[in-house]
């Protein structure tokens, strides 16, 4: 490893970047149910099927306000200092919004049937 040139290191790091980007892209393409799970302090508070939401509404979870729309879920406001969860915007297919200071997690779970099919 000592003889690796700058060029080789750049290639190694670039390939890690490519692998990560592919992973992110794959996460976004994977089909899945749209069940949003909202937890606070490790307890599940709500499970919402996003595709069955007709009119958008808000939920208050501690100091956070969650906006639920048809197919999308987002953090509308938060009382934490950095507000990163709010800036993250809407999520729909996969992923999660995490508010570290308030320990609130919004996660979109894939349908169990689809999970089983993938295995």
């Amino acid at each position, binding site marked *: 490893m000592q003889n690796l040139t700058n060029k080789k290191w750049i290639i190694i790091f670039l390939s890690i970047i490519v692998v990560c980007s592919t992973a992110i892209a794959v996460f976004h393409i994977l089909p899945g149910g749209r069940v949003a799970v909202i937890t606070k302090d490790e307890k599940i508070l709500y499970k919402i099927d996003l595709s069955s939401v007709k009119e958008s509404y808000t939920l208050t979870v501690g100091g956070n306000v969650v906006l639920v729309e048809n197919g999308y879920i987002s953090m509308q406001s938060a009382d934490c200092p*950095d507000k990163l969860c709010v800036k993250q915007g809407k999520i729909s297919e996969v992923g999660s919004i995490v508010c570290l200071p308030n320990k609130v997690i919004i996660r979109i779970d894939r349908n169990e049937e689809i999970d089983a099919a993938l295995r």
Partner: protein
Amino acid sequence: MNLKRLTTDALLTAFALIIFIIEAQIPPVVPIPGIKLGLSNIITLTSFYIIGKKDALIILVLRIVLGSVFSGNISSLIFSLCGGILCYIAMCIFHGITKEKIWVTSVLCAIAHNTGQIIAAVFVMKSTAVLWYFPYLLISAIITGAFTGIIVQNICKKGRGLK
């Protein structure tokens, strides 16, 4: 610890703290927790290479603790500490392997730092949902690590007189 070393360490801690606090004022470009430039790591790395291992650890821990006190984000202390310690361990392991290619060490440190933060987050949140962020953090670690590493490499070339 003699007077000169004490003064140098104190001075570098102050530098790192100022950089840390100014950086905290910059609005985040990417809305994902944990992604930032990590400019204060410039000071940690520089002191590691120019002054010594022990001093770098002292400066790192002091900066993290004081930084979270001054920026008013005590809750982030556990994340920074976990990341910082892992970053320091990576520094100790890899500086012998990468030799004068400081930017490589810097990238590996940044990766270790973000891994540490993710591990801390998994334990604090008791949930694996935060692992979604890992690929994003890895990409940002490589870019920001290379950036700070190149800066450190240039400082070390010209700043041997600091010792």
